[in-house]
């Protein structure tokens, strides 16, 4: 049951520690999120919270969501995610803000990584490639993929060129450096996946 919150990546910056060392940080806007639905074991078979983030015009939502929110008396929201039911006191309509996180907390950040287009094996899978100079004709090619008499086929899952990026990935063990509660902003050390203004989910590290 770890705390989590929906947010937005704002961009990267630097943070000066008191001793003068510099930490690269990502500025993230987190919440405030509103609990849209509290899922319970009795009703839904499992515990969780459906939370909404960022205001939206009601006419931009599809009817099933709009009517559902109306029934629950919750203002229209743009983004919905399901998170762990970390606090029993949270119920429909309650607001979660970034104050649930504190400095030095370890978190996992999930987001959609930047798209890299159609990439070769060196970029996509970290193949080493060949020598660039001295008459080398083997630069960034994947090399042999099926060998000779054995296996005389290309194995399933062989690493090949293809679309790279735009994948949901999670970066673990990032540290929260600072929390600006009034601005709904936290600074997370290191990089988080995605472009600027992309949606991320920040979750406290599971113990």
């Amino acid at each position, binding site marked *: 049951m770890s705390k989590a919150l929906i947010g937005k990546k*704002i961009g990267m910056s630097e943070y000066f*520690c008191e*001793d*003068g060392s510099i930490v690269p940080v990502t500025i993230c806007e987190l919440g405030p999120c509103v609990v849209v639905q509290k899922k319970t074991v009795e009703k839904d078979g499992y515990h969780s919270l459906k939370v909404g983030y960022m205001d939206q015009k009601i006419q931009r939502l599809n009817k099933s969501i709009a009517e559902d929110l109306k029934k629950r008396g919750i203002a229209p929201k743009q983004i919905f995610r399901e998170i762990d039911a970390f606090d029993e006191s949270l119920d429909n309509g309650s607001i979660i803000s970034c104050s649930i996180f504190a400095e030095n907390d370890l978190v996992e950040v999930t987001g959609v990584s930047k798209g890299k287009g159609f990439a070769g094996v060196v970029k996509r899978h970290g193949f080493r490639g060949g020598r660039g100079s001295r008459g080398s004709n083997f630069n960034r090619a994947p090399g042999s993929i099926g060998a000779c008499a054995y296996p005389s086929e290309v194995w399933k899952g062989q690493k090949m060129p293809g679309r790279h990026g735009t994948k949901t990935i999670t970066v673990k063990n990032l540290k929260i450096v600072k929390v*600006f509660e009034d*601005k709904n902003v936290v600074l997370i050390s290191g990089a988080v996946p995605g472009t600027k203004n992309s949606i991320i989910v920040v979750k406290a590290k599971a113990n």
Partner: protein
Amino acid sequence: MNTMQTIEKEMMPVEKTRNFYVGDTVKVHYKIVEGNRERVQVYEGIVIAINNKGISKTFTVRKISFDIGVERVFPVFSPRIAKIEVTRKGKTRRAKLYFLRERTGKSTKLKEKRTTAGSSANSTPENNASSAEGNSSQPQSE
């Protein structure tokens, strides 16, 4: 102002707003930690560049040390900078004084800027410092 700038501005120490310009000779009092002892080292030279990058803003100080040119880049907002003292104001028409790297001896000297009442009013450092506006009021050096 977007969120990024707002947050960076919040983290900036107010007292560290710029009081020097490109071309000035400055003494940078820089704290150095040796083990658990802390001492202040003074580095003196000409500011040849100021790079505006929000809170990551830096300035480059060049000096000739034992006949070898040394350039050091300092982050303006670093807590390790105890003090920046301007010892001489240089007169320059450029934002980046990289041409000084090619020069040796007397030709590295810049003309001193006169900051008496008769000089151009809006470009004197005193005027800008007194406005106490921090980064936003200063001209962008491109």
